[in-house]
């Protein structure tokens, strides 16, 4: 225990830098994943074929073991290679499904009486979407973002395997050195980040709950 504390104090600068890198990886990945999933979720509400395809593809990404996915991406042109860019692509692919699925479920699990009233009032389809469905789906979408963020923080540690930096750097180094202390120097901050994200996003989610 005291070893661990000693490691934290002597490597403070290094650990903080790893946290910064990790947050950057997660932040950028989440921003991209949200920018893809939420609009896609809106689009698939009225398009059953595209919906089946989009959900299936997002599902497949989720089932690929993360280390393997990183490996698959390295040889690809443009999005591949060694470093943060490849890691972000992989993290985005993992974050897609929870956000997409929750967006879709949120948009479609609205009380039929409310939708009927909106329709009967002469709201156009886009008015129903943006003034009724989307506001009522907010907390669902946020729940998806929360799940995706936690997944991304965890899987983000593996990004160090392809040279993307972040808290995984300590974990891989610790494994190589057979040193629990070094592993924990990466694992503990990662766990704390995940808990913090869970708490903050959970708070927002409850705040936005309408029903």
């Amino acid at each position: 225990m005291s070893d661990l504390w000693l490691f934290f104090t002597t490597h403070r600068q290094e650990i903080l830098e790893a946290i910064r890198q990790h947050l950057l990886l997660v932040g950028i990945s989440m921003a991209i994943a949200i920018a893809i999933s939420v609009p896609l979720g809106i689009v698939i509400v009225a398009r059953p074929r595209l919906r089946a395809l989009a959900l299936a593809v997002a599902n497949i990404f989720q089932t690929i073991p993360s280390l393997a996915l990183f490996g698959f991406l390295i040889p690809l042109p443009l999005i591949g290679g060694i470093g943060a860019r490849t890691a972000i692509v992989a993290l985005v692919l993992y974050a897609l499904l929870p956000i997409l699925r929750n967006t879709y479920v949120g948009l479609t699990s609205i009380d039929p009486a409310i939708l009927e009233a909106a329709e009967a009032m002469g709201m156009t389809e886009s008015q129903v979407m943006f003034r009724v469905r989307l506001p009522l789906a907010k907390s669902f979408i946020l729940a998806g973002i929360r799940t995706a963020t936690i997944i991304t923080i965890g899987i983000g540690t593996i990004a160090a395997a392809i040279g993307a930096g972040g808290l995984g750097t300590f974990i891989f180094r610790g494994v190589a050195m057979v040193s629990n202390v070094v592993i924990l120097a990466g694992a503990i901050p990662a766990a704390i980040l995940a808990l913090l994200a869970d708490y903050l996003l959970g708070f927002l989610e409850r705040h936005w709950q309408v029903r």
Partner: protein
Amino acid sequence: MPEPASTAMPAIEFRNVGYVIPAKEPRSILNGISLRIADGEVIAILGRSGSGKTSLLKLINRIHRFTSGDLLVTGKSVSDWDLIQLRRGIGYVIQETGLFPHLTVRENVSLVPELERWPEDRAHQRFHEVMALVGLNADEFAKRFPRELSGGQRQRVGVARALAADPRILLMDEPFGALDPVTRAELQQAFLNLARRVSKTIVLVTHDLREALLLGTRVVLLNAGHVAASASPGDFLKLDQPAVREFIAASELRVGQPA
């Protein structure tokens, strides 16, 4: 639209309307419906569940589309109406109210005027008018959310919302169905006051004979997708068609022997 001088144009006219749900095994819901509903009439559509009364209502604002015959709203077939314009001219009240839970009372009520881009002061004034019509204090309720209202209050707001854009026609589907008997009687009285003051064409669907007789200026009985009877509330109880007698008997409403 100029009206012919001799025969006033009905607000709503069903001309031998049929409605079949298209499916592998098509289901016929309504058959040979012919009804002329004059401006300002309050038609109570009576029938047991499955009689097609809700479907009939939904044909008028084209939530369902009739499959044969023709259905005219202010002289124009609903098929020829611009869907949005048709619906914005028809208020719609349902049992579960369908109030938007994320909007305040004020935002719910003023939604259609806002979509129609009414100027702010006119929308504001109209909000106060319709709230007064349904017997709610506009300032007190403006900022409340639907979840903060009682069932009766929600229903009143639902009616206020339907009236907000001053539609000529009001459709109501079991509007008082989900309320306790006392609140229900209260709202029926409020409805009568309101109907007298607004002079709208109102089509009200109910399974409750007492309610139909109380609120309608005319009662129409639907039975298995057909119009079984159409009469004033006073005459309705005297009709001797089997379907009417049967419905009255089933309603356990003890009335004196018809003369």
